[in-house]
């Protein structure tokens, strides 16, 4: 395409390498930190590779806190919220993709707006609502809120997936005597499975990472999710960086793996025009 000039690949290579370094270094650094013994944490000159690799920080985090409980809580909340938002979004996405009806534009707009306005404006009323429902300090509060949070985005993604599947597919099934809903679940969904898996992963990661709702609703040891727990590790004056780095690595590994797996589909979903970082 461009004129072949010799220095071009070189400049390109240098730029891309520097950018890669810039992107990866913070992750490298937190990982290396988590492997350092406490006496190497603040040495000057700084050790870019630990003299002695240790897993003490990882062991320690499970000793000084209920980290296993936090992981379990985060898992259960994210899986349940991801699952329900997917089911609900499948239904609404399907209808929005396949039917023209009065008020469709308004429905889409109502979903769209939720992605635009800062939801924490409603944080205080939400707190009161949750305490009326007796859900403060209990995980269902987060399961509900995360489901709600993810439904609009997942709806749009699912709508996009449905639009690319010819409706003749479910019509054929309906000719054979399937009801619309069973055609949807028996014929269409299986075709979309990779996309659905990616949408689930995206929702899961968002829930896994969520902080402020969790801080607002949860203040009890047995109900803390990982972000809430890590937030409570930050004290006013000091952070124990050994434990903190280990906690960071533990909490980021699942999301990195899942994202690496689902990357292509997430990009696809994102680039269909619905955007949430």
């Amino acid at each position, binding site marked *: *395409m*461009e*004129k072949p000039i010799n220095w071009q690949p070189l400049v390109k290579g240098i*730029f*891309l390498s520097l950018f*890669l370094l*810039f*992107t*990866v270094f*913070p992750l490298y*650094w*937190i990982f290396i930190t988590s492997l350092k013994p406490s006496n190497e944490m603040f040495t000057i000159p*700084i050790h870019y590779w630990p003299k002695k690799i240790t897993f003490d920080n990882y062991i320690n985090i499970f000793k000084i806190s209920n980290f296993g409980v936090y992981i379990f809580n985060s898992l259960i909340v994210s899986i349940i919220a991801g699952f329900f938002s997917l089911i*609900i979004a499948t*239904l*609404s996405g399907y*209808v929005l993709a*396949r*039917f*023209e009806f*009065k008020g469709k534009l308004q*429905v889409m707009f*109502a*979903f*769209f707006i939720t992605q635009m306005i*800062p*939801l*924490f*404006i*409603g*944080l205080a*009323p*939400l707190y009161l609502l949750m305490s009326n429902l007796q859900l403060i300090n209990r995980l269902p509060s987060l399961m509900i*809120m995360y489901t709600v949070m993810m*439904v*609009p985005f997942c709806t749009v993604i699912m709508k996009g997936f449905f639009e*690319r599947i*010819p*409706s*003749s597919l479910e019509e054929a099934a309906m000719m054979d005597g399937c009801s619309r809903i069973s055609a949807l679940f028996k014929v269409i969904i299986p075709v979309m499975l990779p*996309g659905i898996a990616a949408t689930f992963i995206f929702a899961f990661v968002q829930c896994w*990472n969520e*902080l402020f709702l969790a801080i607002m609703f949860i203040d009890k040891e047995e109900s803390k999710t990982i972000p809430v727990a890590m*937030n409570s590790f930050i004290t006013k004056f000091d952070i124990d*960086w050994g434990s*903190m780095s280990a906690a*960071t690595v533990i*909490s*980021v590994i699942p999301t*990195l793996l899942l*994202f*690496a797996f689902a990357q*292509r589909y997430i990009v*696809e979903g*994102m*680039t269909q*025009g*619905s*955007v949430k*970082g």
Partner: protein
Amino acid sequence: MKTQTEPIVERSMPTFRIAKHGLFIFLCLLPALLLVTVFIYYPLLKGVIMAFQNYSLFDLTNIDFIGLGNFQTIFADAGFKQSLINSFYWVFCSLIPQLMIGFIVALLLRRKFRGRGIYQAFIFFPWAMSGFLIGLIWRWMLNGQGGVINDLLMKLKIIHSAIPFLADPTWAMVSVVVANVWYGITFFSIMILAALQSIPDELYEAAKIDGANYMQQLFKITIPYILPTLLVTTLLRVIWILNFPDLIYSLTNGGPAGSTHILSTYMIDKLINGQNYGQAAAVGVIMMIILLFFSVFYLLATKFNKAGDF
């Protein structure tokens, strides 16, 4: 599953009649709409009302409408003014480098080369992380005198003595912006790359035959072609960055002395520490107004009317 580069072949969108399917449509949309109404729109509406009330968690027996009282209190607060100014700085200074670098990276990744897939997977990393964790990681890297960033800058002879990144208000603001740039480049490069890959190669072939050089191709073909994507992406990103408190929350928590608060962290600070919900809600209303103005202005300025369209 088709990739974005392939044209979407014939969207089949049969228009069924409502009368026949009304109930089905209604039932399918009901759960989504119900949840969104109860748990998003109701609290938002209530939040807007609260902005005009004297609403403090410590004294729930004494809630009255106080008109614009909360707004007056906030406007009189120096911390609010600071965070308003910071918000613009935060959005602008984060957005421009994100967009520029993201664009360059996308251009460089447009053509296939060995290892491009792996490269993309690696630069995708920041995106899988929460703003909270990113803030923490940068806080550690910028930490005190012995932070790794100071060490690197001194090794590269860019600075002679350590910079108190998080203790100095100006540097603290620079720090949160740099961390945010780090976070956001990926987003732009991925969105722009997808748009670039939708440009038909024939356009470039034709331009080459006409003797257009790289820059001419860039400005005559590439940029005009992806302009709609650029505009929508930027609009949404501005809104998103403005609403994005997580990173600042864990990196500086607004400090030192409130110098790095943006509107959203200022509001959350009021919620979590101040418990003055009325004032927090008033900040939220102001944010909504800013967003509204921005969106209208942006749409008019760009005459691009498809942003509201998914």
